[in-house]
């Protein structure tokens, strides 16, 4: 934000001051040697000369620790100059004017306007910075994009069409999302919607509706014996039942096992038969798989089903 904002705001303020106090014959605001704002009745030539005169006093004002204000009283009129934080306000009034009234107005109104402009100035970069930091996402990841488009088409259908009772199909069925809905092809919104439809796949693959395989953390227990197959781990019956329930109709033959260091393998699985180990949150792993996984008894591993 440059000084033009101050100029515009202060110019109006000075005009208003003159309307309220007609005794104010001249008023202007300056900063160093730059004129920021002036009323209509004051010539720039006079102001420039006045600024030079003020600056000459200011130059010598180190004697009194810097200038705060100047007041000049003549036989016909008075001049007041108030040094503010950023700007200097000069007002000339006739001797008939109520000086206290004029001072009250000018010394309240002008600093308030400057403060307001400052606040706008402070807020603007913050908003700009916020916008820069958090730009609106242009391209979403495909999955999210799909969700948004689906919602958009749903919202549009709600607006344009009477409410339709939706029956949620089974997760493994192919679904037509918008094919059966009636749109007015002449409307602009629908044309946009059609383009969305073209982008979004109408038919969803079965896997899109499948839940993410749940990950379960278990403690490793040794599984040994002559008749024990070396390629099969044992896990709780409850875990297997949950998987079966979750992935209805899917065959789960293998389990994915991962150790704490990220080393992983897949193996067959069966439920724990031994009551000693059942329901204890353990996974019984044969030595061969333990070696492969670089894990051992008492260590933690995570398991999740491998969906075919």
């Amino acid at each position, binding site marked *: 934000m440059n000084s033009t904002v101050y100029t515009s705001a202060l110019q109006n303020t000075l005009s208003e001051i003159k309307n309220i106090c007609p005794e104010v014959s001249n008023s202007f605001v300056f900063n160093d040697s730059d004129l920021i704002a002036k009323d209509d009745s004051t010539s720039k030539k006079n102001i420039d*000369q006045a600024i030079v005169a003020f600056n000459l006093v200011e130059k010598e004002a180190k004697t009194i*620790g810097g200038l705060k204000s100047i007041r000049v009283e003549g036989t016909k009129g008075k001049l007041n100059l108030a040094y503010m934080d950023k700007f200097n306000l000069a007002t000339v009034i006739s001797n008939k004017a109520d000086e206290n009234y004029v001072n009250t107005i000018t010394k309240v109104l002008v600093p308030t306007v400057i403060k307001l402009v400052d606040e706008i100035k402070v807020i603007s970069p913050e908003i700009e910075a916020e916008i820069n930091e958090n730009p609106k996402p242009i391209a979403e990841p495909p999955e999210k994009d799909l969700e948004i488009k689906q919602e958009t088409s749903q919202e549009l259908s709600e607006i344009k069409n009477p409410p339709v009772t939706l029956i949620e199909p089974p997760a493994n069925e192919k679904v037509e999302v918008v094919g059966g809905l009636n749109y007015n092809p002449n409307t602009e919104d629908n044309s946009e919607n059609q383009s969305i439809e073209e982008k979004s796949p109408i038919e969803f693959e079965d896997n899109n509706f499948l839940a993410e395989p749940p990950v379960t953390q278990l403690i490793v227990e040794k599984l040994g014996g002559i008749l024990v197959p070396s390629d099969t781990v044992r896990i709780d019956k409850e875990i297997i039942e949950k998987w079966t329930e979750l992935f209805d109709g899917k065959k789960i033959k293998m389990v994915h096992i991962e150790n704490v260091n990220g080393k992983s393998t897949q193996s067959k699985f069966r439920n724990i038969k031994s009551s000693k180990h059942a329901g204890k949150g353990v996974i019984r792993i044969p030595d061969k798989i333990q070696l492969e996984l670089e894990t051992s008894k008492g260590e933690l591993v995570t398991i999740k089903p491998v969906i075919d």
Partner: protein
Amino acid sequence: MANKKQIAQKTESLVVVENQPAVPIEVSLFKNLSENLKKIRSLEGILGYIIRNGISAEIDLQEPEKLVEYAIFTSQIVDSSQELAELFTLGGLKTMLVEGAEFKVLILIINENKINIFMKNNIDHIKIAEKISP
């Protein structure tokens, strides 16, 4: 006859007044102002004063070593004020007040006499001006 005599006496006395030289009036004014300044100098917060006209000058400052600095500063105030008075049609200069961060300066122009009074910011300069030139 009696009336004529009276008139003649009055006229005579008037002539005597008109023939008084101008300088003594200025001198007496200077003396009066100087005395008033001496009185206010004793007040707390008054840092000093300078009074001068074409003939005489009197200085009483708390920091005499700053005399030149103060003189230059007040001279600049008067010069700039005169220019401002011309630019904005303020008429003949009467008083000037310059407030600084540390203290303020009140400049009074009474006839040919220029009075600079240095005082702390909390001092009521209007009362001071009234005491100097009632």
